[in-house]
């Protein structure tokens, strides 16, 4: 008898759990869901919070991380309430990703560029200062370099071996892993340019980084890179400008081609290692998820991402008025990214 009762109770509990799950699937999601680049995350979160505080009728958007690649993968899973509405990305979407998106039914990919970010090389404050060039970094990081006219496995162990102007310090370079958009910029703007100065290495061979433990790839956040620098005092890390800016008491920044990175030098293009930041909006969700369009337009407001805004304080390099206007116009006209 007792057994029967408990069996019944069990059945009721399971049925209740199942019906609860079905009923949630039916109700509409009311909060904008964002995921992606950890470089964009701080900016995106600040805007989300301000948005929630300013518009009382909308919920505060939820911002997840996962790297640019991870965010775009989630974004391209399909259309529907349990897929994200916005993918943050610190690089432009790739052709393959657009094709994958379209295949899964996400055909209205709206690209929104909202500013620039600089990538800096920084070392511990109690160590020597670095004056780098793309060529030096390439020589320190590549799998193969040219010595005496011959292509050999990278023999350099100290920065002073690469060039006598550099400090006599062990080469350890802490760089973001390939799930980060920052990695692509590091390769394009530093490694590839450095590679061009070495005629013998071409094309894909430029991307071959040494595998003897002197290059450390970090899949997590910049705090992990910073922790690495705490453990290995000689290491030089790759950071976003805003991260460096908030930890200036622990890090010192290296110049690249003699230019020190700052909001001004990156904004003017003088400092070479910078990139635009993006987020991608799912057009199919615009009329379904409340606040999605408003969030995007709020983001592009001058008070939010322009000069003197909160985001500039947080380390974003703003776009000028004209650029911002263009991006907003394109978004409002729903200009879709094509697979090419």
């Amino acid at each position: 008898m007792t057994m029967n009762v408990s069996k019944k109770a069990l059945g009721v509990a399971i049925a209740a759990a199942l019906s609860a799950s079905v009923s949630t699937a039916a109700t509409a999601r009311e909060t904008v869901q964002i995921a992606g680049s950890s470089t964009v995350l701080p900016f995106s979160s600040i805007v989300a919070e301000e948005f929630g505080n300013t518009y009382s009728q909308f919920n505060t958007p939820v911002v997840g991380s996962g790297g640019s690649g991870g965010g775009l993968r989630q974004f391209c899973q399909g259309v529907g309430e349990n897929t994200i509405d916005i993918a943050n990305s610190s690089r432009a979407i790739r052709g393959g990703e657009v094709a994958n998106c379209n295949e899964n039914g996400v055909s209205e990919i709206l690209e929104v560029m909202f500013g620039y970010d600089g990538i800096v090389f920084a070392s511990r404050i109690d160590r020597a200062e670095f004056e780098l060039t793309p060529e030096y970094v390439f020589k320190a990081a590549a799998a193969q370099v040219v010595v005496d006219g011959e292509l050999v496995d990278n023999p350099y162990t100290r920065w002073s071996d690469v060039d006598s102007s550099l400090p006599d310090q062990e080469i350890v370079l802490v760089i973001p892993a390939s799930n980060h958009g920052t990695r692509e910029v590091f390769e394009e703007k530093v490694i590839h340019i450095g590679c061009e100065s070495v005629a013998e290495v071409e094309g894909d061979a430029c991307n071959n980084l040494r595998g003897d433990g002197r290059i450390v790839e970090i899949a997590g956040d910049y705090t992990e890179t910073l922790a690495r620098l705490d453990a290995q005092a000689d290491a030089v890390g790759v950071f976003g400008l805003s991260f460096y800016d908030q930890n200036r008491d622990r890090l010192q920044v290296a110049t690249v081609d003699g230019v020190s990175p700052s909001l001004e030098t990156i904004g003017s293009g003088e400092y070479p290692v910078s990139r635009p930041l993006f987020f991608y909006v799912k057009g199919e969700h615009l009329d379904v998820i409340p606040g999605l369009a408003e969030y995007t337009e709020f983001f592009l407001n001058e008070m939010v991402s322009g000069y003197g805004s909160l985001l500039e304080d947080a380390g974003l390099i703003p776009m000028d008025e004209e650029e911002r206007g263009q991006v907003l116009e394109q978004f409002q006209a729903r200009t879709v990214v094509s697979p090419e």
Partner: protein
Amino acid sequence: MSITIEQRRQHRLMTIEKSLSTRHRKERRFRRLGLAAVIVGMTLVATLFASILMRGLPAFWQATFYMELYFDPEVIQVEDKPQQASGESQAEFNQRFAAWQTQVGLVNWQSLIDAALQETLDEEIEPRQLRDLRALLSSNERFTLRNKFVEDPSLLGQTIEVKMLASANVDVWIKGNIDRDLADARQQLSAQTRAWADQLYDAGVIRNAFSTSLFLNTDSRSAPASAGLAGAFMGSLFMMVIVIALSVPLGVASAVYLEEFAPKNRLTDIIEININNLAAVPSIVFGLLGASIFIGYLGLPLSAPLVGGLVLTLMTLPTIIIATRASLRSIPPSIRQAALGIGASKVQTVFHHVLPIALPGILTGSILGVAQALGETAPLLLIGMNAFVANVPSTPFEQSAALPVQIYLWQGNELRNFFEARTSAAIIVLLALMLSLNALAIWLRKKFETRW
């Protein structure tokens, strides 16, 4: 003859003495080893706790402004707060109220704060110094002010003492968490802001007050000083309720069936082995499973405590089943035989006699399982609970953070000087919760324990 006997006796005694001293030595060595192991373990735990407490405790107190603020009617030019008129429908009133709220939202609340700061500093501030001035206070205090006014519009024209959070960098500066001798270029605050902060601290306007924001606020990135654990706490609470509601009845029911009713055959052996295997599966695997089944297939919402709770239930089930079975097995067969002997049915035997005695063991096992689930992070990362959420969830279907994930997120925040202490404070809160759960388990066991 007698000599040889005497010799043998001597020889035997010597052998015994020798072996006895070896045995004593062995015993002493073993005891010392055991003691050393305990000391090493205790030292490690003590170091861990000491370092967390030392870093985290200061974060429970936070630089806070206590100053007079004037709700200037020249700045706050809004209509009276609407009251619901008789005969007005709820919808109409809501619309009127929303319009009023928008109007209130457009008021330049920041200028009130600026004015109050200038008054307190007794200085005229030029417009170009506004940036330095605003760096003193947490940037979202203007919304706190707005909310205060929405609640009580009679504040208009009054001067009241308000309590406002100093910005994270001011807190870091006052606590000395950044080297105060560093050059200007390496400081987060300008020289002017630092001078003001010191001046106000000496004047008692900035005080180190108990940080209620740590408990009452949600996570914040635009104003890190106000980042708190409220959202994460609610998320964890919802998950624990789901875990308890699902895993305890399911776990106990399956353990009772397997232990007391199921026939002992090949099939139940296989089930038993697999339950043990399941208990050894790394938690991240449950996260992957949860992401693909609950979110991918069943379409449950991302980042929701509901999914987190379901995933953690899967993880906790084997622990509870194993603990319950062990506790059932430890009950002497004589109890069952006695009950059956006086004519009780099998079900009566189990529910009236065996289960009550096994209760302390079952409770302890369940609580330890739940405590483990409370601290689990890895599976939650995979179902999107590591998102930045600035709302306190009101149902388990809404997006939310969880306590261990909040620790992970703060640990990764770029404002290291402020969040290192904040992270340790969050760890202290989580540890306190765990310890109270464990204490509850011990108390329950003592209360219900039967001694033979």
